[in-house]
């Protein structure tokens, strides 16, 4: 059993807001020392369809690297038998009866659309 010690972000920031909690530490993951490269940010930005200009990319990468470093603390927590919690109440889905409740509101919806024609939303040509 190891004790959790501030490391990475916490150590570097000298941020000891908390008494370090005594949690057992799982095998050290290689993610611990993970940092992010600029080309990874470019890949992620492409996945998220967000353009980042050339003069911003360095700073964006730096900021995100800091954030990720902060997140890496979680790697030290042993969660082997813990069920992930997607909903804080662990509630279950209620079902809706199969009834048509919506009416045609195309005019109202398309009045706020950037580009429509013949009832269709327009986008630059999609190449298949």
């Amino acid at each position, binding site marked *: 059993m190891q004790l959790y010690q501030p490391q990475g972000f916490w150590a570097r920031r000298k941020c000891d807001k908390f008494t370090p909690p005594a949690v057992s530490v799982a095998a050290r993951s290689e993610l611990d020392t993970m940092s992010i490269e600029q080309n990874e940010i470019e890949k992620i930005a492409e996945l998220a369809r967000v353009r980042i200009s050339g003069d911003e990319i360095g700073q964006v990468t730096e900021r995100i690297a800091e954030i990720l470093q902060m997140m890496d603390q979680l790697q030290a927590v042993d969660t082997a038998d813990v069920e992930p919690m997607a909903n804080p109440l662990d509630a279950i*889905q209620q079902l809706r009866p199969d009834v048509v409740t*919506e009416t045609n509101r195309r005019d109202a919806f398309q009045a706020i659309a950037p580009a429509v024609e013949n009832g*269709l939303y327009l986008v630059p040509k999609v190449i298949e």
Partner: protein
Amino acid sequence: MQWEPVIGLEVHLQLATRSKIFSGSPTTFGAEPNTQASAVDLAMPGMLPVLNEQAVCYAVRFGLGIGAEIGRRSVFDRKNYFYPDLPKGYQISQFEAPIVGKGSFEILMEDGSSRRIGITRAHLEEDAGKSLHEDFHGQTGIDLNRAGTPLLEIVSEPEIRSAAEAVAYLKALHSLVTYLGISDGNMSEGSMRCDVNISLRPVGSDTLGTRAEIKNVNSFRFVEKAIRHEIERQADILDDGGQVVQETRLYDAERDETRSMRSKEVANDYRYFPEPDLLPVVIDDAYIESIRSALPELPADKRQRFAEQYGLSQYDANVLSDSRALADYFEQVVADCGDAKIAANWVQVELLGQLNRDERSIENCPVSAADLGALISRILDQSISGKMAKQVFEAMWQGEGSADDIIAAKGLKQVSDSGALEAIVDEVVAANSAQVQQYLAADDAKRKKLLGFFVGQVMKLSKGQANPQMVNELLANKLV
């Protein structure tokens, strides 16, 4: 080298719900663009999905129909990608915990043989909208009416070995889902869309080759052609010592070829994670039992019952149970006329023949099962001959009325009055004394043949209306 194709199919089945899977919009086909797209379907800010109970019920019904394990706690996930026909930028689907697990069903080959194909899983998801590529000043138009239509994605095990088997699989699946009443199975309206995964391996090998995926093949005929073409393409590559590239290909029906969809080849990372706007769907025993108890008889059971209960050949039983509507029609005819074999014959030969000629479906058949049953009853009670019955059926098909009406109107009723028939028989015997002598001198075998001459003469005089059986009896009595 001899290659063995390994084929798996992913079928996107549109479920026959009235409203969409996550919104109260109608699912009717063919409406004006975007008139059936609500705020939820359009992914307006703040809109949230709520799951349609009928979609869950249909998925469970399918699972029970293929003997599958039902996911007791199934989870919806977000599949993230950008595309204009996907308004939220993610599709709500199921990834790790699908509602239907492993199962199987029987497929029937053309030669009447059958085999079972395994189903890996089936999961619920929402459909995307449509991109219309006709030219709007060089732009693409987006119609989101279809967005949010409930789909059941049915994934087969890679157990299919030929184009013919793939078609048999799809036909059996089509029959199954329409029996279950969970889909209209209308392929031309996109209710059943198919992606095909194909790889080849040397015959005898049990490792899998590199596969190609053919997207969106939308008819039985195209599936067969697309697969044959793709098998040939891959075999050519492998025979030349090349390697098949793992990729998505699109079947072009007009050119009868598959081609690479390079635009889709950008490395996709769908970032699946549990949809936080929906909660796990928990299905208990009571719910499953309530659906199980209401399951209709399924095609395989019906085939077997038809063969046993009605004494039909396996082939006839297969044809007659092909669709639930046809099977129901057949059973109604049997109930009305009481003779399964004649009913089976009439339904298969006359009825299906006419339907084919007119390109109609059984659902739109102009002759009801009750009317056909009544017609067959007239053959059985000897009111008309089988030959006349075909004439009557023809008239019924044209909408001229019921069997009895037509028989009366056309004066087709058989003459079974023994006095009238005897007079005709006497006339024939008197007019053909030479043949009578010949008959009397002949042995039993020859007599049988000669009797036909007399019957023919009687039928001719009676304009075909004489009851053949009575004529036979009368002649046998006179010619002694």
